[in-house]
């Protein structure tokens, strides 16, 4: 079986007929997280080199040989578990079968026949060009806005910190472009003594002034790049330029790196107004909480079409775009700009109200370092092959689809997941098992071409009971959320919320009809495996993604929608139903490593404000940020030791804050250990820490996550369950 961290089904059994699938109402899908970090230090994916024999694949459907494809006829042929074709075994690959088990005798020494996840070394037929080097091209806004928000100095600082850590060894290439109303190129030829700046003022006909030396080898030109980074902040410190020629600059950057591809990392502060791709200010607060709100969440035209076409061009040249946005005014049209990372397999980062004096700076720098140094695959493509009975219906995530089922990923990294909606292509009542195989062909940052293959074998069932027994509540909730985002964007947010609730009612009604007929009419019968589904659906309805009301700005919502589509299952759930930890009465080893090497976390408590107490620290982990809630009667020394400042100073901060190791206060030490443990062990990245003192205005954000409470216009958990029970009863009658 493939470990679920890489490939996770919403139901670990496949319905035999369409009728069964429709009746159960459970969404069928697969969540792929191809470059997920291994859980333990020692765990790694085995790498197989087939050498001269070549990778063994099915002749008809091109499935890779895997543990679930049986070898027949004494080992001379193997039967593809996707299309049932009996394939010849190449002579170099032949091995006898063990008469007792029917398996090849060399299974133990062949990981591709024993493990659900395996990686193959790709021979040259899998490359259209030699493996590309790691390329990082920085595009930096240097308008007045960029200086005033502190973006420019933070970006330069971030790049400086990353330079030594960039993967790719001696082949890594780097380049920089800055822009305001004009575009500034920098020649970094290693034989020069200084970097040279070339300004191109014509943004109507953009061209590249030099054929070479704008993208250079990092090691050879390091001294020039360092020099340039020192100079850039001073060069533009007193700029009065406010117009941003973002669209034309994209074209210029594209022309510099199109021959090789790689990552384009853009830092943007001013709203693009000059040249092609100008953003129209279409923000209209009157649209909030109406049916038309979804318009602001979708890309606008004509800028939207320009960016979409541009992103497609980038995808063809294996360029991915990471976009860091630092809006100073309210509206930046994230929905339109977000198509750039979405189509090219990049990532969108959004820092509204960026305050460089707060920990925002640290947070951004850490995000940048993480973005550039996490495990990354270049020039990648991915394909899912379904066995008997299954077919792919839709995909969610950041990619471009070519020829219906090939995901083009100029860049894929450790944080990206892809959710595939599945359906039934035919009835498979006579079949006992079916398989799904996903394959990612990519180039590592060290220039090795690899194919990572995930194969799962699933039992086929004809009973409703089995489907419920094998249902994976978290995966179902995350898929439901992603499908609801699509619904919200194509019609309206209220439809999305309704759709999620209706889906829950359908599932519960079916369950009740089939298994709950003995219970009293007033009881809500929940399947054991899905008992938390209503809770997660309620959490999603109240989450920034879907919540009604006029408080949520469209830019923020659009950002979270783009982000949510790429999250793996645990992060989806942590974002809608965060983990809350009460640090009162913690055992002393919280935050330390236990015997198995993993950090010990306290049990999470439910998100109901009844659970809060008068004194003490509560830590809320959303996988996007960590909120530390300090109850009113908490000892001042604890606050001082943990945050380095007094409670009054903390109350004035709006951005993230720094934490310290707790010194002499046991409580603070525990809190620090817990928070660091969450960052290093659970999410493998830095999360900003926000301090919330009880009674200050900021605690509204904290309490917005308390989904079990009654909020302004949506039910409490208990009320929601009652409402569900009424709907289910009405449906069952």
């Amino acid at each position, binding site marked *: 079986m493939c470990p679920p961290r890489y490939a996770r089904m919403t139901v670990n059994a496949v319905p035999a007929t369409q009728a069964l699938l429709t009746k159960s109402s459970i969404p069928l899908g697969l969540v792929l997280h191809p470059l997920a970090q291994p859980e333990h230090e020692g765990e790694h994916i085995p790498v197989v080199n087939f050498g001269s024999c070549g990778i063994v694949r099915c002749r008809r459907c091109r499935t890779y040989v895997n543990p679930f494809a049986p070898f027949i006829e004494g080992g001379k042929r193997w039967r593809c578990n996707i299309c049932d074709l009996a394939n010849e075994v190449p002579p170099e690959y032949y091995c006898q079968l063990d008469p007792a088990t029917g398996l090849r005798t060399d299974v133990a020494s062949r990981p591709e026949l024993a493990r659900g996840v395996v990686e193959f070394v*790709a021979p040259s037929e899998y490359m259209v060009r030699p*493996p590309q080097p790691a390329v990082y091209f920085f595009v930096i806004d240097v308008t007045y806005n960029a200086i005033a928000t502190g973006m420019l100095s933070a970006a330069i600082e971030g790049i400086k910190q990353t330079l030594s850590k960039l993967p790719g060894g001696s082949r890594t290439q780097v380049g920089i472009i800055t822009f305001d109303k004009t575009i500034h190129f920098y020649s970094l030829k290693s034989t020069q003594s200084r970097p040279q700046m070339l300004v191109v003022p014509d943004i109507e006909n953009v061209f590249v002034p030099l054929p070479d030396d704008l993208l250079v080898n990092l090691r050879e030109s390091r001294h020039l790049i360092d020099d340039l980074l020192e100079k850039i902040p001073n060069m533009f410190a007193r700029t009065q330029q406010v117009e941003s020629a973002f669209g034309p600059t994209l074209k210029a950057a594209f022309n510099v790196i199109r021959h090789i591809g790689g990552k384009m990392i853009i830092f943007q502060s001013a709203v693009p107004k000059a040249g092609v791709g100008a953003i129209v200010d279409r923000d209209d607060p009157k649209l909030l909480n109406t049916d038309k709100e979804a318009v602001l969440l979708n890309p606008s035209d004509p800028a939207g079409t320009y960016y979409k076409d541009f992103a497609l061009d980038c995808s063809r040249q294996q360029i991915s775009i990471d976009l860091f946005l630092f809006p100073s005014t309210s509206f930046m049209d994230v929905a339109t700009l977000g198509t750039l990372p979405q189509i090219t397999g990049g990532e969108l980062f959004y820092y509204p109200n960026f305050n460089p004096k707060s920990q925002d700076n640290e947070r951004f720098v850490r995000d940048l370092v993480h973005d550039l140094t996490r495990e990354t695959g270049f020039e990648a493509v991915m394909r899912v092959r379904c066995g008997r009975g299954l077919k792919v219906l839709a995909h969610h995530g950041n990619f471009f689809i070519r020829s219906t089922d090939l995901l083009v990923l100029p860049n894929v990294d450790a944080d990206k997941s892809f959710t595939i909606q599945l359906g039934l292509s035919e009835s498979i009542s006579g079949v006992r098992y079916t398989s799904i195989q996903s394959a990612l062909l990519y180039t590592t940052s060290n220039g090795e071409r690899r194919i990572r293959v995930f194969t799962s074998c699933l039992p086929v069932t004809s009973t409703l009971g089995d489907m419920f027994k094998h249902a994976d509540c978290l995966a179902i909730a995350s898929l439901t959320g992603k499908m609801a985002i699509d619904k919200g964007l194509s019609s309206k947010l209220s439809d999305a919320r309704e759709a999620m609730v209706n889906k829950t009612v359908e599932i519960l009604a079916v369950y009740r009809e089939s298994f709950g007929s003995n219970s009293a009419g007033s009881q809500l019968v929940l399947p054991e495996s899905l008992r938390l589904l209503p809770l997660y659906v309620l959490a999603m309805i109240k989450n920034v993604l879907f919540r009604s009301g006029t408080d949520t700005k469209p830019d923020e919502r659009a950002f979270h929608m783009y982000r949510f589509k790429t999250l793996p299952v645990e992060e989806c759930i942590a974002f809608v139903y965060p983990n809350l930890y009460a640090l009162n009465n913690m055992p002393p080893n919280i935050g330390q490593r236990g015997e198995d090497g993993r950090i010990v976390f306290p049990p999470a408590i439910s998100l109901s404000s009844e659970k809060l107490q008068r004194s003490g620290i509560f830590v809320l982990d959303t996988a996007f940020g960590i909120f530390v809630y300090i109850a009113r009667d908490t000892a001042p020394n604890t606050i001082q030791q943990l945050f380095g400042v007094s409670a009054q100073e903390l109350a004035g901060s709006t951005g993230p804050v720094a934490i310290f190791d707790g010194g002499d206060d046991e409580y603070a030490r525990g809190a620090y250990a817990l928070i660091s443990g969450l960052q290093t062990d659970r999410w493998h990245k830095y999360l900003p820490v926000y301090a919330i003192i009880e009674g200050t205005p900021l605690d509204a954000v904290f309490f917005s996550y308390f989904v079990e409470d009654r909020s302004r216009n949506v039910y409490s958990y208990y009320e929601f369950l009652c409402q569900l029970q009424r709907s289910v009863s009405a449906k069952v009658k």
Partner: protein
Amino acid sequence: RVLCLAHCYLYIPSLSSVHFHHLIIHIAMSLLTLLARLSDSQMLAESMDNAAGKSQDIDFYRNQAKQIFKTLSIKSPSRLSIDSGPYYFAYLIENDVCYLTLCERTYPKKLAFTFLEELQKEFDTSYGSEVASARRPYAFIQFDTFIQKTKKAYQDSRAQRNLSKVSDDLADVHRIMSTNIQDILGRGEKLSSVARKSEDLLAKSKSYEKAALSLNSMMFLKKYGPFIVVGLIVMFLLYLRFAYW
């Protein structure tokens, strides 16, 4: 002033990009360099010129290069130049590694072979001992940085200096054979193009058949469709009448 040297503005409001290219003096150069293991044609390293990467034909010549590798063996001449269209391939074999580069016709052969010799010396020193055990394609792809650097050195005005240096080292360049790509690849190429053409034909005739069939059925529907529908309605009405009788 922070950037003291050449804070230069390219003031070109009226010039289009075409004009700009005319400002560059065209220097003949090497466009593509590949290293492969002689014994099994396994690719070891490769480097492509930026400008070459933007042209369409470069893939065609890359394929030719790979085919050339396949024809090489221990018995092949250790140095050879192969003309192909407006370019030529120059290769050098040493220690089971073949160093191949594609150059424009006007690029001096002396320089091409000195360039290859320099690559060979560096590669042999850095990676020579690992060549036999390399198990994946492009195992030494990181060598492309050195290839690029060396290629640039052979491209600018110092090429003149190199030439005079070279005439001492490589006095026997005249003895390096020169041949044509057709002689090397000859029949093999023709066969593969014929195979490709017949596959194309097969595919096209299949799709023609499909199109013809669908056109036929569309015509049929167009002609008879309304009649069939009317006929069905009439029959249905008649049936109702008789059923109620």
